[in-house]
């Protein structure tokens, strides 16, 4: 993945919001370290992490604020989303109240955050539902089937309900599993792609762009990603991070 030619790179400030224990830190841990911890302890305050995302034409450096979901930290949230260009609002699809909380965050972001902010709604813990094969290989299609027949299905929020809401509010929408890694990288890639080029302040001069990225990752471009809203859903690029 040695990119001999420097690509334009830009920083994107991203904030994660959502009820306690929905898996915000786990999603970040999966994205940044490709790791998962079964009994992750609650975040205290907020954690700041960075991770680069190589797109074919540019490099996005995510500056991630993983906030604590506990109620008592809620008053600090504006500090983290104030200048954010992207937000990942997470709920636990086995816990309906967490979707209600997520809707509150979306409303607050739409009211208070910067106008152009890209918001993704993420239903996490897909591995606990029966419609998940539980593997990272599983593609995005299966999440569209919201049937919950089998016993052992812990799903409490149907894909339809969340997806409809996401479309109404022009949000990106994904169902993920931080545990298996399913759809996690796709969320961040979709966000990277959805950030309008104009809002990126380039850190480096223009470089020779296309095609140089690790070919193995490029097949992700073919993957179906549920992109809602007005942003161009065709401008997908592989994220090789």
């Amino acid at each position, binding site marked *: *993945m040695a990119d001999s030619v420097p690509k334009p790179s830009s920083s994107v400030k991203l904030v994660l919001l959502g009820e*306690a224990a929905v898996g915000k*830190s786990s999603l970040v*841990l999966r994205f*940044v*370290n*490709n790791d998962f*911890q079964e009994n*992750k*302890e*609650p*975040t*205290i*305050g*907020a*954690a*700041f*992490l*960075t*991770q*680069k995302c*190589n797109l074919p034409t540019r*490099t996005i450096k995510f500056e*991630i604020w*993983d906030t*604590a979901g*506990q*109620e*008592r*930290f809620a008053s*600090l949230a504006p*500090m983290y989303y104030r200048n954010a260009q992207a937000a990942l609002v997470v709920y636990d699809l086995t816990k309906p109240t967490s979707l209600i909380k997520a809707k509150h965050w979306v409303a607050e972001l739409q009211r208070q955050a910067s106008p152009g902010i890209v918001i993704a709604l993420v239903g996490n813990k897909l591995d606990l539902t029966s419609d998940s094969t539980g593997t990272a290989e599983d593609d995005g299609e299966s999440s569209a089937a919201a049937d919950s027949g089998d016993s052992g299905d812990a799903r409490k929020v149907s894909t339809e309900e969340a997806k409809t809401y996401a479309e109404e509010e022009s949000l990106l929408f994904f169902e993920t599993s931080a545990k298996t890694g399913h759809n996690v990288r796709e969320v961040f890639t979709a966000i990277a792609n959805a950030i309008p080029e104009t809002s990126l302040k380039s850190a480096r001069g223009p470089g020779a762009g296309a095609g140089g990225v690790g070919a193995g990752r490029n097949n992700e471009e073919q993957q179906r990603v549920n992109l809602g809203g007005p942003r161009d859903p065709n401008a997908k690029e592989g994220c090789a*991070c």
Partner: protein
Amino acid sequence: MDERREAGTGSNVSINSNKTNDGATPPPPLPRRPKPTSEASSGALQVGAPAQSKPTTAVSSIDIATLSFPDGSRGTFPTTAMRAISTPVPGGARSGYATPNREGLGLSPMGSNELSDSVSVMSFAPTMRPPGDLASLVAGELNKKSRAWNLLRSQSANVPPFESARTETLNNNDTGLAGFEREFDDIPDLTVSQSGEGSITDEDRLALWKAKMKHYMILSSAGKPIWSRHGDLSLINSYMGVVQTIISFYEGAKDPLLGFTAGNARFVILTEGPLYFVAISRLEESDAQLRSQLDALYMQILSTLTLPALRNIFAHRPSTDLRKPLEGTESLLSSLADSFTKGLPSALLGALECLKLRKSQRHTINNAFLKLRSDKLLYGLIVAGGKLVSVIRPRKHSLHPSDLQLIFNMLFESGGIKSGGGENWVPLCLPAFNNRGYLYMYVSFFDGRTDSTEPPQQESPSPPEDEIAIILISPDKESFYELKEMRDKVETCLTKNGTLDIIRNATRAGRPKISDIAPGAQISHFLYKSRANVQFSMSALEPSFTDLTARRRLMSLYHQLHASMHGRHSHLKVLHAVGREAASLAWITPIFELYCVAGPNISRGVMAQGANKIIQWAKREEERLFIIGGGVF
């Protein structure tokens, strides 16, 4: 050996025994023994406290100024003998101790009255003597002629160390630590185990709960359970209710209950406004020790909520369920509680441990740290493997050990921050600094920051105890990026001048080893506290005291020694106690406190010599072992 046992150890009750039925049978009269600590009557067993048993033929205690107790333990109480040989302080005796003042690190001692409590005018003179005199104190002329002394001497060549007793002569039943290795195991959930084949009943779970040697509970004065270390609240709700009823009964009678004993468990209660804190211990800690542990739990709650917020919550609704506002801090309370149960020298001594570094190296680090200081900074700390490396602070603000204990617990004992990777921005209240408001703490581990383009290469991560953290505390909640910038500069600077590697190596080198400090001293372990610096040093726990039970056994001895020395009416300056498992020695002067432990039949003389070597070492190494001064701005 057997002869000596005949004489000295009449019964089989070890000093760790639970049998302290005070007052059931009056202990035999003891000659020339100063009033023991007040703790004795509270049910906590002291080293050398008389336990109920049959009298024995004691070693001629007058001769050697050692008292034998019926349980087989013996203690040396430096009463007449000590004063008799007290002499004026030779000039410059304290010259090696650069910092008897508070200015140093700016740490304020845990109990501000500690000094006055334990230093009496009468006993001041002998303790002012320069180190090196302990041997003459406890093994002076007086003793050398005695038959018993000679007998002891002859044994000293063959001293099984304290730690060997663990496997050879004792099983943990004797030490009251049976099952301690399971102390921290979770009590299984009903739901989880029902799905498995061997379903567990509530009785089983209660039995597991009752088998724990240490419990902590927090409840509101209205009776709402808030937190308990073991057992989910549904399991133990009724017990909480009983506790609440008992406490309220005494509250109602305007005669607050401080503690009581039931069987071999000691209950200690701390009431703080609307909150009741209860510790239940079968580990033979003193009431004062348990109370200070409860106080630390209270501080943790204040650190989460601040005092005005806590008061507010209960002023509006006395029946509030505090679990909600404290949600997510359960693991902090638990890890704090567990470090007490394991035995935490820093908590026992109310002092901090520093990383041993050369004075010039520490100086270099302090200077770099000071030079790169952000305007927003209140306190800056570098911590490696849980030991303090460097501190910078404003002249007018000191750092309190109890606040640092909360920070260390959050960073090193519980997983919330450490496991996350990245940098952290944590609002917290440091109650000893100011219990009314929040500060903001920037935390970053020097190796742990992720800044990778590539997926992280799986290089061996350093074990948590080796991790180096930088902690920058500011009153300004918006100062994250400034402090982050400061951190980056400090890292660059320390990397460039090589001190980061020095810190890393010093951390890896671990704690000092007795074999280096006092070769051949036959001492198994020691704690040395520099009182003026409010810091301590201890010898390595490896290899003998690393497993849970062995470590607790050692720490229990220290707790008993400490309690004997710090009881309210205790004016002991030197205590030498011998039990079936161990001989221990405590020595307190205005400058230091030394606690050491050796095998049971080490002679007092040999032990005293070893202690002297440790004191001399600490004096020699003082400026490396302790942060003296620190960076002040």
